[in-house]
């Protein structure tokens, strides 16, 4: 862990055109202050990989409204009519991925696996253009791993070495994404001294985390 950054400084580190894994499920467990800083910086041409596109005014919805995004990889965009319109108009490219496949593709990318073999999507539009393999008499789709330039996480607590723990349904994609970003930036609700998060409660070891976002003023 290299230290704590203000959101604006973190947004400066993220160049236009970068690919971002962003934690959250309908904006629960999403790093809102980091997103606000990206919008304030006028970021452009980002690829966002996330469970969903949240809704206008929250989380990833704010990046869509600001036209900071050119490509979205997600399982669900149903609560973001703005993104659906931009997708149909061809202004933002959207790749829809089944939720369980998406999290495993990210996990595969983060843990050094060459992909995922899953039955999900067989015989549907999802299988188009993908390889199929048989293992033990069952057919699986081959789904490729995902990594990104940055992982932007939200956590409940961080300690001074970057260990993270999460609260309730705000875990979602965050612990998996922590492995798959080349630079990992975590925005915790609070930062506590080392030892306050017991080792058994650490879900993301600090060795994975490059930067924390400083506490909210």
């Amino acid at each position, binding site marked *: 862990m290299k230290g704590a950054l203000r959101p604006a400084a973190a947004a400066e580190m993220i160049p236009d055109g970068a690919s971002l894994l962003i934690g959250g499920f309908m904006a629960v467990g999403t790093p809102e202050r980091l997103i606000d800083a990206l919008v304030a910086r006028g970021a452009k041409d980002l690829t966002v990989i996330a*469970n969903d596109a949240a809704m206008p005014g929250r989380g990833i919805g704010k990046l869509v409204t600001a036209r900071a995004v050119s490509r979205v990889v997600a399982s669900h965009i149903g609560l973001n009519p703005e993104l659906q319109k931009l997708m149909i108009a061809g202004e933002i490219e959207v790749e829809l991925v089944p939720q*369980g496949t998406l999290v495993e593709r990210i996990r595969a990318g983060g843990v050094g696996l060459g992909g995922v073999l*899953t039955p999900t999507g067989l015989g549907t539009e999802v299988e188009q253009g993908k390889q199929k393999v048989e293992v033990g008499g069952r057919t699986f789709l081959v789904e490729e791993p995902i990594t990104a330039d940055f992982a932007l996480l939200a956590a409940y607590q961080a300690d001074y070495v970057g260990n993270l723990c999460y609260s309730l349904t705000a875990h979602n994609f965050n612990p998996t994404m922590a492995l798959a970003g080349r630079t990992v930036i975590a925005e915790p609700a609070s930062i506590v001294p080392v030892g306050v998060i017991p080792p058994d409660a650490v879900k993301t070891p600090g060795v994975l985390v490059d930067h924390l976002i400083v506490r909210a003023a």
Partner: protein
Amino acid sequence: MDAKELIARRVAHEIRPGMLVNLGIGLPSMVANYVPAELGVFFQAENGVIGLGARPPEGMEDENLTDAGGGFVSAVPGAASIDSAMSFGLIRGGHLDMTVLGGLEIDEAGQLANWKVPGKMVPGMGGAMDLVTGAARVIVAMQHAARGASKIVPRCTLPLTSLRRIDLVVTELAVIEPTEEGLVLREHAPGVSVEDIRAATAASLIVPAEIAEMQLA
């Protein structure tokens, strides 16, 4: 009793003690209202909780505890919070006893379409493809028709959710079991005749000599 309540109460009758059950957003989520606590059923919300509880009292919501539709919930004693990889591991891995989902179309092969109306509505599949592929038992809870058109059709015209044959369809008119031979009419709603059901159904139905009246929880 309105159509949705009738459907929810009939589906609730399918739930057995100790099951792990995932309820979809909307009508399926109403099923929980008719499942007695003493059955010891755990409801999973795929965003990350096993042991979903009722909405908390006004002003006591936790922003980090929501269901998969983003609504505030509580957690029952014995609940566990999990990340998305675990959540979909449970779903795809055969650890989920039952899922109840909505549907746009069901066909004579028992296949479901529920995630996309090309050119009109593209919300994304979210977790639906994993749920239908992986759950031990898949129940579709939906109204029999939409805008006057039967949703039970000879062949799905909308993109499929999975190749898997679903286990049971519950509507406000009937309970229908997809089998290898086709769609078998099992039960009629109170006051609804077999002729009413046939007239409201675009698909052909196999009608056994004995058709029971729906049992409601």
